[in-house]
């Protein structure tokens, strides 16, 4: 077992142990925090597939996070009012069923990632960063000016959606769902990285010309990665909306994209458990520093700056040592 595997296992167990302890000690707030960590980490796992593996610095992943959130909000609000989404040509009703909502969230965020990626991947470098940012902003303003689903005020859902056999209103049971999905996301990311596709994508990041020489098309590899990445982040968005029982345009804002990226850098880019460590650190900092000072963002900023300037490997890098250099 390498030091990184050891660190990862410890992190996975800690994220499980803390809410279990909180459950025993009857501390629902801590369970909710752990759920938030798991969900935000899943969003980070999604971005990590594009950014860590594919080298695609997307500053617009809030687009997919928000689409997932709105998939939940729209379906659940229709179920809440018993108003069908459409009646013609097909009767589509709202739903409160999580698995259905997840599927819709994944499908729509994947579709959006396909469209956005197909256009954005024509550019590269700083232009790619900016065009993804622009698409995120487009959706942000669209959500703000779309009065049917709350516009600027967002949408509240009074009861959390349901999952067969579970009581999702019980914090620990909802945590179990989020944790299971995070594990599935991590498993997918690990499998992808080790697969022939992942290796080709990694190669396309480091030496696109050579990848082309052997007959593969970097554009297609990157687009596939971008779609998978968007879908995972969309799923996290649906869960996040369910956690808060609320969606608003702020899920689409570029600060959200920035924060998801902060999880990666804080935890360690391109490291499997980077987003988990990063999201956990972020939430803990928010709680601890937020308790100390109203202006905790100053300290967060200073810390982030220190990590970027002096500890490029992030938390996982600090715990598990530098990665073997590939490039």
């Amino acid at each position, binding site marked *: 077992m390498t030091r990184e595997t050891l660190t990862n296992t410890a992190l996975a167990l800690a994220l499980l142990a803390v809410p279990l302890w909180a459950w025993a000690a009857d501390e629902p707030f801590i369970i909710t925090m752990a759920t938030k960590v798991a969900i935000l980490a899943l969003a980070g796992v999604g971005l990590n597939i594009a*950014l860590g593996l594919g080298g695609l610095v997307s500053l617009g992943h809030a687009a997919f996070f928000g689409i997932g959130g709105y998939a939940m909000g729209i379906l659940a609000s229709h179920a809440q009012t018993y108003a069908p989404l459409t009646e013609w040509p097909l009767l589509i009703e709202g739903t409160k069923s999580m698995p259905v909502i997840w599927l819709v969230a994944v499908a729509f965020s994947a579709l959006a990632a396909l469209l956005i990626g197909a256009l954005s991947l024509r550019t590269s470098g700083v232009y790619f960063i900016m065009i993804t940012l622009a698409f995120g902003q487009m959706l942000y303003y669209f959500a703000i000016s*779309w009065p049917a689903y709350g516009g600027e005020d967002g949408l509240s859902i009074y009861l959390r959606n349901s999952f067969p056999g579970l009581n999702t209103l019980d914090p620990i049971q909802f945590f179990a769902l989020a944790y299971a999905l995070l594990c599935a996301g991590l498993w997918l990311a690990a499998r992808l990285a080790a697969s022939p596709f992942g290796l080709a994508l990694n190669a396309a990041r480091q030496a696109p010309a050579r990848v082309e020489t052997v007959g593969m098309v970097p554009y297609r590899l990157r687009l596939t990665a971008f779609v998978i990445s968007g879908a995972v982040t969309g799923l996290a968005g649906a869960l996040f909306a369910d956690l808060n029982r609320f969606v608003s345009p702020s899920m689409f804002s570029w600060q959200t994209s920035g924060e998801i990226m902060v999880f990666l850098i804080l935890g360690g880019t391109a490291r499997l458990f980077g987003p988990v460590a990063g999201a956990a650190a972020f939430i803990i900092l928010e709680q601890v520093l937020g308790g100390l000072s109203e202006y905790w963002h*100053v300290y967060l900023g200073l810390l982030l700056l220190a990590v970027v300037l002096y500890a490029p490997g992030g938390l996982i890098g600090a715990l598990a040592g530098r990665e073997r250099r590939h490039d």
Partner: protein
Amino acid sequence: MTTILLIEQILNGLQFGVMLFLTAAGLTLVFGVMGLINLAHGSLFMIGAFAAAAVAGATGSFLLASAASIAAAAAAGAVVEIAVIRRLYGRDHLDQVLATFALILIFSEGTRWLFGSSPLFLDVPSWLSGPVTLPGGILYPLYRLVLIAVGLVIAAGLFLLISRTRLGVRIRAGEADREMIAALGVDISKLYTVVFALGAALAGLAGALVGAIQSVQVGMGEPVLILAFVVIVIGGIGSIKGALVGAILVGLTDTLGGVLLPELFRLFMDNAAATATGSALATMLIYILMAVVLILRPTGLYGERA
């Protein structure tokens, strides 16, 4: 839709565009010369506005306030360049994005700390307030006309600075080959500090000038930053001319879209639906414009071919 309203909107668009140019010029200069993405540029815009509001509050002089905005933003820019940005030139874009994102957090919360959360107000000075009558009987606020004029004068000055002066030659040389001009004895790190402070000063001035028509508050820099990025990406990163064309294009698209799109939809929709659809689409219009430009020309209108 009357002609007068249309002309007013075009002037508004021009004014918005010119102010965007002041903000975008620094961003594109810093990217062109140093290859650095600076997300904290909007914070420098905010610092300019706050410095101006504070000085105007204390002295009552708008000119002093404008000077203070330039000085404060340039000083903040120089300090940030020396303390942080300098270490990021050799890093990849991801590190630059994150470090400057961190700077936004620090600047925004720091400003909230100093000035509190409630917005400040910076008034248009009395000698610049009130409308003027333009040919054709159009009444237009004098202050906005002055903004257009000031912006265009600064744009012209910047072109002269870059194309005619020794500093401009060095800036352009730094863009082309930084090792070579360092070898020729130019103090490149001082040059970078100067360019960064110059960009910051322009953003700070824009913040003060715009601050008189909006409220001055924490977070006011971020929307402007995003727009400035849209501008330089449309224009082609590193090109001052591109920034000017892009800024005016974005300014006009944004202002005219808000007026014309609902009108357009009214041709084949009922009134309420047309207003809703038209204004929803109008808020997205500049991002659509940017996407279209990048799809057609992946390096922007005046960008160098990749």
